[in-house]
């Protein structure tokens, strides 16, 4: 088991390295001249050269990458072009905000998704199954800003029951914050309900068709007991993995929702950095999202290994 987890960890580190190279290449090499990009087409060449030197972008690429990546490993993510201050503290504050939004979303998504999937599986092939599966699939493929617009039009503009921005202002009470986060959470629930319901459905159907479920039914156990005690315990294992993977995507999907609802999380930070061509901020933001995703996936592996006795005892396969 330890060997398996070490291997996963190693792969995650390599993946993160590849991602960092892609991000660095895109952020540092493709834009051409950062000094020119910041100062605009009418600035003098001397000013551009001077700024390039100040930013350190006139040094060899390998040196630049090395400085950037070793800095990032020490928690120094560089200096923002637009704010002229360190990226890391701003990114951290934004990450905390995003975590709040993501946590609220997950508290709603997980039970709803599992419930939907189990109901669909118990009615496999009949109307409730089709309705849940098709709704989940459609909701997952509609971009977040589309469902966001629809809920804003209905709840904020039409019924006027909820605010259309997510920012409750500084020092707002827990209740107020929740009220402000309710609308932004709905597009996220739409986005992820389908995936989780789909996994829960597949897992439950597999467990229902298994030999042990049949044995339990044939020895006279009530259907309710067969389902709660035998089926669900086994069927939800793959779902846990999916949930952990989705956590990473959830953080990434926040760019749109946070922009639409003007919520100061990591998504809005990335958007803001992109609009202002603030490459150090942008690179750090994207790298962070990648790291969060990989950590979430790794945790899913650990959790899965812990929950699955066949993996825990170290049996092969």
């Amino acid at each position, binding site marked *: 088991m330890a060997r398996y987890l070490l291997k996963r960890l190693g792969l995650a580190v390599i993946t993160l390295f590849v991602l960092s190279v892609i991000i660095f290449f895109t952020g540092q090499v493709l834009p051409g001249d950062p000094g020119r990009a910041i100062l605009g087409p009418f600035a003098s060449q001397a000013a551009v050269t001077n700024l390039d030197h100040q930013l350190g972008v006139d040094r060899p690429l390998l040196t630049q990458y090395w400085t950037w990546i070793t800095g990032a490993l020490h928690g120094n993510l560089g200096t923002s072009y637009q704010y002229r201050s360190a990226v890391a503290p701003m990114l951290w504050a934004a990450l905390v905000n995003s975590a709040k939004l993501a946590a609220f979303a997950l508290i709603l998504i997980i039970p709803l998704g599992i419930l939907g999937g189990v109901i669909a599986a118990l009615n496999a092939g009949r109307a409730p199954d089709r309705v849940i599966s098709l709704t989940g699939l459609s909701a997952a493929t509609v971009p977040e*800003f589309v469902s966001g617009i629809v809920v804003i039009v209905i709840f904020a503009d039409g019924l006027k029951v909820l605010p259309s921005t997510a920012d409750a202002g500084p020092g707002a009470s827990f209740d107020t914050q929740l009220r402000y986060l309710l609308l932004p959470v709905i597009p996220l629930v739409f986005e992820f309900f389908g995936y989780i319901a789909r996994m829960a459905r597949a897992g439950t159907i597999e467990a229902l068709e298994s030999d042990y479920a049949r044995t339990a039914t044939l020895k006279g156990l009530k259907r309710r007991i067969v389902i709660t005690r035998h089926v669900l315990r086994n069927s939800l294992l793959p779902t846990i993995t999916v949930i952990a993977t989705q956590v990473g995507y959830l953080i990434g999907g926040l760019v749109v929702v946070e922009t639409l609802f003007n919520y100061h999380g990591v998504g809005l930070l990335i958007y803001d950095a992109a609009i202002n061509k603030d490459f150090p901020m942008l690179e750090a933001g994207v790298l962070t999202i990648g790291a969060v995703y990989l950590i979430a996936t790794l945790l899913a592996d650990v959790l899965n290994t812990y929950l699955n006795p066949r993996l825990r005892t170290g049996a092969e396969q």
Partner: protein
Amino acid sequence: MTDILVAPVAKATTGKELPPWRLIARRPAFIIGALILLFWIVCALFGSSFAPHNAYVQQLLATNQPPSAAHWFGTDQLGRDVFSRVLVGARSILLVAPLATLLGTVLGTALGLALGYLGGAVDALVSRLVDAVLAVPAVIIVFLFIVAVGASAVTEIVVIGFIFAPIIARTVRSAVLVESQLDYVPSARLLGERRLQVMFTEILPNVMPTVLVEFTVRLGYAIFAVATLAFLGFGVDPASPNWGSDINANYGVIGAGYWWETLFPALAIASLVIGINLVSDSIERVVTTG
């Protein structure tokens, strides 16, 4: 899924198995999805000729008009007819997304064939590359590239295509690995076919169903990505009608009560992605179970 499993099996026992495309065309979900898709394709091709108004003309004396008989979906902040803009707006998204998906599918299929059949060190390298690309939502990676090189239709097509390629390659690769185990592959080699020939004339036709499913699924993602980029303000041309850009331009005035300017383009995007998903889901179910 059980209901779908039953149908083809029952057909097989009668000895009259329908060809896959007939099975697909019989599914109600496919028909609804295809009709939605057809409607938007017609709009993309001929929208400007049957739209009730000119989608570009501003009427500054009739801005922010609510839906009425003259303007079914109302007018926007510049007095342009929202209904006409929605019809004509199908064009930009239906041009960029399918071309990007096609590029990704062609590159990805070639790469997947090479990885699956030839294997080796390149295989391991590309697997890491796919993992790295998948660690960040595609929209964000595309976003990063677009910011770096500037937005244009060609950039969007190339970037989305290149990001899809390794993802599609991975799916094709696993299909190729299954095919390579079958007898006809070594047989073709023994008959003296060269490796490239085996890859493209023997294996490729047999993994085409997988490629087709991948194409339709990725098309849904491409539309998602293109619409989202336009919404985030990275649309290709601000004046031409574009659902995502129109939403971006008008969502600030929802609070003033002008909901029609954003709601209708939003519903257009929703209907298009749902249409594509109904089609791709139908194809996938028939191909994977039949």
